[in-house]
């Protein structure tokens, strides 16, 4: 409306951010060697490179080691209730669409107690970026099996080893109606983690990233064979997906050109046993977003809410006086 003028005025106070602008005063309390550090760094780099205003950025989490991430970001944060990060994030987003909302959660947080919210969040397809830190264990509570813990793993809750086949968060997400963005990253390939996060951020809709995350404390050596043998990592590249830097390409030679709009192939890749796929498995920018569908023609001002409510009440209320209801009564 007064765009040119406002843009001039905004330019006067434009700030270039550095990574430190997104680091909070609290030093991360994660164990040395924990993969969560890499995720935090990737997120801070993204904020810097996209020049996101810290006061317009929100990180919402549940409970767990991974869920401590909001404390370490210099942005708004909500360290919530176990398993309930998504509903909180959805509430923030629908009321304040101008904010950049990130969700961090763990495999326990998302796939056990929060599983219902996860399914519905995918179906709602609101414009959020979600990172599932999957260390395949409850870390914060010191080693209990989670739904993604591999079969046979001994833990404090499964001293005889896990009995059940692990749940695959990728195939589950790909099976939910309205799914629009599914990717997998590994914390030990930080450059791809960053690129995937960036793709996810630019996707308008719900972006789901499963990050395979090392927990040297309770799942030590779990991913060693993959960390040490790059040929076991299958990197998904595509003109619309990842493009590898030469340094990365030289090490990770096992590459597949995968079109992210190909759902059938995405599902096949998600089900790979012996290799870990890294990249964008599925992307459909056309899926409608719940926040857009429900945005409404007018801003939801208190006056509008009052007007609409009164109109509704008038329709059903029995009026004292000469309203329509009175006429019916006569």
């Amino acid at each position, binding site marked *: *409306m*007064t*765009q*040119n*003028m*406002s843009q001039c*005025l*905004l330019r*006067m*106070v434009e700030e270039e951010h*550095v*990574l430190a602008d997104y680091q909070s005063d609290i030093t*991360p309390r994660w164990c*040395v*060697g*924990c*993969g969560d*550090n*890499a995720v*935090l*760094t990737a997120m*801070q*780099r993204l904020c810097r490179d996209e020049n996101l*205003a810290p*006061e*317009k950025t929100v990180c919402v989490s549940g409970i767990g080691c991974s869920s401590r991430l909001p404390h370490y970001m210099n942005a708004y944060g909500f360290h919530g209730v176990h398993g309930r990060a998504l509903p909180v994030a959805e509430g923030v987003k629908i009321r304040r669409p*101008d904010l950049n909302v990130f969700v961090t959660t763990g495999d326990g947080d998302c796939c056990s107690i929060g599983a219902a919210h996860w399914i519905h969040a995918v179906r709602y397809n609101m414009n959020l970026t979600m990172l599932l830190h999957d260390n395949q264990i409850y870390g914060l509570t010191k080693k209990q099996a989670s739904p993604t813990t591999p079969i046979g793993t001994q833990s404090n809750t499964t001293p005889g080893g896990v009995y059940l086949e692990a749940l695959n968060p990728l195939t589950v997400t790909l099976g939910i109606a309205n799914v629009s963005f599914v990717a997998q990253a590994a*914390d*030990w*390939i*930080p*450059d791809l983690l960053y690129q995937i996060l960036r793709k996810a951020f630019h996707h308008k809709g719900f972006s789901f990233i499963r990050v395979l995350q*090392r927990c*040297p404390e309770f799942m030590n050596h779990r991913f*060693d064979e993959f*960390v*040490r043998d790059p040929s076991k990592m299958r990197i998904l590249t595509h003109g619309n997906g990842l493009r590898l*830097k*030469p*340094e*990365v390409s*030289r*090490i990770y030679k096992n590459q597949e050109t995968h079109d992210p709009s190909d759902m059938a192939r995405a599902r096949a890749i998600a089900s790979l046993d012996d290799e870990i796929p890294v990249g964008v498995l599925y992307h459909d920018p056309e899926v409608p977003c719940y926040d857009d569908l429900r945005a409404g*023609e*007018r*801003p*939801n*001002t*208190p*006056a*509008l809410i*009052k*007007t*609409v409510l009164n109109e509704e009440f008038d329709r059903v209320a029995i009026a004292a006086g000469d309203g329509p209801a009175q006429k019916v009564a006569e």
Partner: protein
Amino acid sequence: MNQANPSQPLPNSPAPVPQGDTPLRPALFARFGDLSSLRYDYPLVLVQGQGSETVLRPLSRIIDDVLRICSAPGAADEALRQQVLALEGSIRSRIEQGATGKLSDLWRESVPGLLKSAGEKQFGPMDRNLDRAREDLDLDGLLIGCNGDTPHITLSHIWKAVHDERAKVFRKTVDGFILQIADILKADYNKSDDAHKADALRGSVGSTDSGIIDFHKLSAVLGREHPEGRLPKARLRRLEWVLSILGSQRFFGPGRSSGRGLLDQAPHSHIFQSCEVALEAFRERLPEVVLLVKALSTAELEVAHKYNAELHDPIISALDESDLTAEHLRLLPPALVLLRDGKSDNADTVRAFEALASGLPIKVLVQTDDILGETTPAPSQSSFGAASARLAAMAMGLNNVFSCQVSAAHIYRVGHEIVRGMQFDGPALFSIYSGATETAPGVAPYLMAAAATESRAFPTFVYDPSGGPDWSQRFSLNCNPSVTQDWPAHSFQYEEANGNKADATLPFTFADFAITDVRNQRYCHMAGKNAAPERLIPASERIAHPDGDSAEPEPFVFAIDPENRLSKVVIDTKIVEAAENCADAWGRLQELAGINNSHVVHELARARAAWQAEHREDAPSTLERLSAPTPPADSPVAEAQPQPAAPDPAPQADVSDAPWIETLRCTTCNECTQINGVTFAYNDDMQAYIADPDGGSFRQMVEAAESCQVSIIHPGKPRNPKEPDLAQLIERAAVFD
């Protein structure tokens, strides 16, 4: 086709045309004797509630749409089709008799009469059919006929449709700001002591409280804990000021989300009957625009949390009327000025051009009821007289004025263009001929209006400065019949005195149009019955060759009298001259539309002559040039240089024995930095690199390499040869080379 019947013998000697009571009609009017039996663009529905997408729709098209949906092709639904068409006819005659109202109402009101005249009962088959059709009626609005009120009613309707859309966008933005600023103020209030008092807390729980909560205790607890950091006073004042300005702006009325009673004063009106008043209103409202611009800019910065008082205060407070840009003026809703030539104050009508030249978003309708003007030099009733037909062309000369000329008969066809003119950022002129000419008594305004377009007396055209950079994108003449011809031609059948049927193709010229006007009838007379054919020449031929001997032969047009008897009417020089003028103006418009462009015609003739001359002298050379020169096969062809292959970035380890890290692959896991925070440090991307190779021991280097889970630390060779256990450390380091 209707027939004209020249059954009366043509009079012997030139007789003056009887004036007034038995007016002449151009022969081609014969087929439009009874408009009510025709399905044309009127009655017209001023469509409501469909935004600017559909603003106008003729009744006949609406009925066709309905029939397409509700009736199946074939005999089964034939009865329904006939009944609905009869209903359309009934609505049409009601409108012609002066009825007004919404389509849905007139539909309802027409049904009983139809049922009665068809001898059908209520709820009988015909009633049910009509009801079925009505359910497929998906638009509604005021129905109007074609008369002297049509132009201003239609233009006001279109203006309002565009205004409502503009208002919606405006309110969405402004109400959005109001909401966000109110949120900021509310968040601040929630930090206050007041917000933590027992009563406030009770209020926030609502009426379901059944005494289980002790709000005094809660208040005591929350009072101790409540957050710090209230908004600075200056910011509070600024936000409240913005709210007050946005809440009291008068350019657009409040919407549902703005709440009622927000405005102390009624919103501004934007429809005027005078350019002077409209311009005055603009001037008076400028200070309000300035305030609104300040408030909007402040709001935009405030909700983005970017308002910096030190930098922005001086700029915002210094803004005044002289700083307003076109962008700001766009906040003002365009004004609509309704002028009627001959009825509005003449001086003010002439000021229309001052308003248009101002560049302000003023939309001016000049409605003209008379485009022929007075035939005597007596002072004219109207401001522009015969020049009315040139108003829109004059406005084009101002360059940034959207100009549209159209007769009432064709308004529907340029509906989208009128919408564009209303949406256009700058001024617009709509010059509309209503057809309600008093000096053509007995001719339906629609017919007059249509004839004005046909005869080129009032061609339809649109000039849209926002259409593109050149004439071809800005100017359109396409809505006129036979646009590439001088006059449109129509085939015509008639009966000769001996009863034989005959065919003719008649051009419809300005002269045909002019004879409808009683003021012109003294400039024509009936051709003598025995007038020798070679002494008469069709008017169109005379107009095309104005330089001929004007005395002989005499130009004529075919006319009919009220009984549809055909005669040749000889026209005077006065009409011929006016027609020549009209043809000339039409030719200029055609040129603007790229038809018979004189520059092109001349250039083509010149080029052709030059080519012919050259062709005769030097045929081979022309041929040579025509055959495209093909370069010899071995001639050098510019080609992209092969790109040098990108050098494969080789590991730096080969370069020296210094320790190094594959930084791009670092996971920020803190292992190495924990071992030695001097040797190992993070770069701007929070990825580790060797900050100081001599910052620690070779042992630490090797231990870090071993702890690094992604094995990206390469210890290199020891820096200090005196370090203990070197041999063993070198061996451990070897795996990382």
